[in-house]
């Protein structure tokens, strides 16, 4: 366990080596927020739709932009790279579990992103555009849980895509498709409550809503207690499913590597 913790800490230190980039990233996030909020202002004006007004949409946008900073879908970049360069060898000759290594590495990067990117973006966003406080203090714990679920699900999705690279060598098309699905069905750009009924049903059947919509809706008090617990339970179910599938594919990938040599 210490090995993986230590791995995460090193990954954190490595990210620190590139802290010059952080200003560009924060600036980019704020610009992105500004554009989103301008669009919502133009669309909504001072009216309310489904009980949602411009103040709600500002909060929603800030929450989603911040959350997207700590999602771990991009774990596939790392796997792609080590398959292409053959660097995966160096991981397999170590007494480590590669999937856990990946998780620790991404978690370390995330610690950095949380401190140096998420918190500044959240603060600047709140100061410039105004962020509503959490609707009820009872929702703090479910909200925190939903954020953790979002991180695990995003890692699970990214990891599955990464494993598919063992068969197809490149996952560009798949990544592109899944990224598109995430943009739409996570509700990070357009909240699910603006979706027509059919597409709401589709969104509820997919795991992507946990990567944006669910945490924001819990924070803003747009879900009843039963809905919250239902969603958290479904989120856990997705985590179990994704990790089961991930373990199976990893086992198959190792087999394939052992026989076919990659």
């Amino acid at each position, binding site marked *: 366990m*210490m090995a993986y913790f230590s791995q995460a800490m*090193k990954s954190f230190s*490595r990210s620190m080596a590139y802290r010059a980039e952080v200003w560009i990233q924060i600036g980019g996030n704020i610009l992105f927020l500004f554009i989103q909020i301008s669009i919502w202002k133009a669309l909504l004006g001072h009216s309310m739709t489904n009980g949602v007004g411009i103040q709600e949409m500002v909060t929603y946008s800030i929450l989603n932009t911040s959350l997207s900073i700590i999602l771990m879908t991009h774990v596939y970049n790392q796997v792609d790279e080590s398959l292409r360069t053959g660097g995966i*060898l*160096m991981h397999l000759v*170590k*007494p480590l579990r590669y999937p856990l290594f990946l998780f620790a590495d991404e978690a370390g990067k995330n610690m950095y992103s949380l401190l140096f990117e998420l918190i500044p973006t959240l603060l600047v966003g709140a100061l410039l555009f105004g962020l509503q406080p959490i609707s009820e203090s009872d929702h703090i714990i479910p909200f925190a849980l939903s954020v953790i679920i979002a991180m695990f699900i995003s890692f699970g999705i990214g990891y599955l895509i990464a494993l598919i690279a063992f068969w197809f060598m490149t996952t560009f098309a798949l990544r592109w498709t899944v990224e598109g699905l995430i943009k739409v069905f996570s509700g990070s750009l357009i909240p699910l409550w603006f979706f027509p009924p059919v597409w709401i049903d589709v969104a509820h059947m997919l795991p992507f809503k946990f990567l944006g919509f669910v945490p924001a809706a819990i924070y803003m008090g747009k879900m009843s207690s039963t809905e919250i617990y239902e969603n958290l339970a479904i989120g856990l179910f997705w985590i179990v499913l994704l990790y089961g599938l991930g373990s199976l594919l990893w086992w198959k990938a190792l087999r394939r590597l052992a*026989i076919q*040599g990659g």
Partner: protein
Amino acid sequence: MDIISLQSVTKEYKQYKRYQGFWGSFRNLVTQEYTIHRAVEDVSFSIAKGEAVGLLGQNGAGKSTIIKMLTGILVPTSGHILVRGNNPHKKRRENNRHIGVVFGQRSQLWWDLPVIDSFDLHRHIYKIPLPLYKENFDKYVELLGMETFISQPVRQLSLGQRMRAEIAISLLHEPDILFLDEPTIGLDILAKDRIREFLRTINQEKKVTIILTTHDMKDIEEICPRLLILNKGKLVYDGEVKHLKDQQDVGKRVTIEFADAVPPVTIPEAQLMKDEGKRKQYQFSRDASVFEHLSKLASRYPIVDVKMHENDIEDVIRSLYQHLDDEDSRDLSEKKVARI
């Protein structure tokens, strides 16, 4: 007690047939045709604990495939492998705790972090007790002269410094076996010497079993008493370096510098290799009485200078490879004849 043993190990890969061109790329989607490529064929050998063995072969001879099978990443298509008494694939993580690996073309150091940070992480991954870690750390830093760059980020190191760090890190956990894949590639002579000396010391003092692949014969001459040569997946030589030299001894090469340009003179028991008028090179056969022939020659043509070249291990290996290639092409032509 053998620490590594291979028993008629064969490794085959399927190579799917690839069609060329635009339409070919569509055929690739549906085609399942493949050819079998045999990377390693019926190889058997065993290595005792504490031995240092050089693994030699041309590119594509199967060296890396063997190392990958020994580290448990690949499974053999047939045959048995035991490393530390275990099946290396089934006990990969357990075995690899006691194995050190240096791939000259890949790094296990963290590019952006100081060298010492990678060492520290290595300590946790291999669960090295702190006192042992400190002892080894101090020892290797001193032996490899790493004091000056141990706190520098890896990206600022020279290749020689980086290789020293790579070798040190792979030995921190006191492995039973150290695999080195071209550890001196691209290094200058001094850096090579330093690494060779260090590996010799480690092998003798700590009894670490060393398996080394390289294209630099000097690596093998100076570190490994025993040599394995692979050719097209087959083991063609297993024995002492010295013995191979004797076996493949092709005699002496002599360069003669004449006072004036002379016609191509023939010398008994020797073959004219190069003729540049004044300077000629002869290859004397084994057991030829070189001096006798030279003094006879000197009485006919004035000689200014004579240089003798002992065949070094590189010449020996070169002649072995050429010999093997000749055999192969002879096999092929025989087959062709047979078919006609």
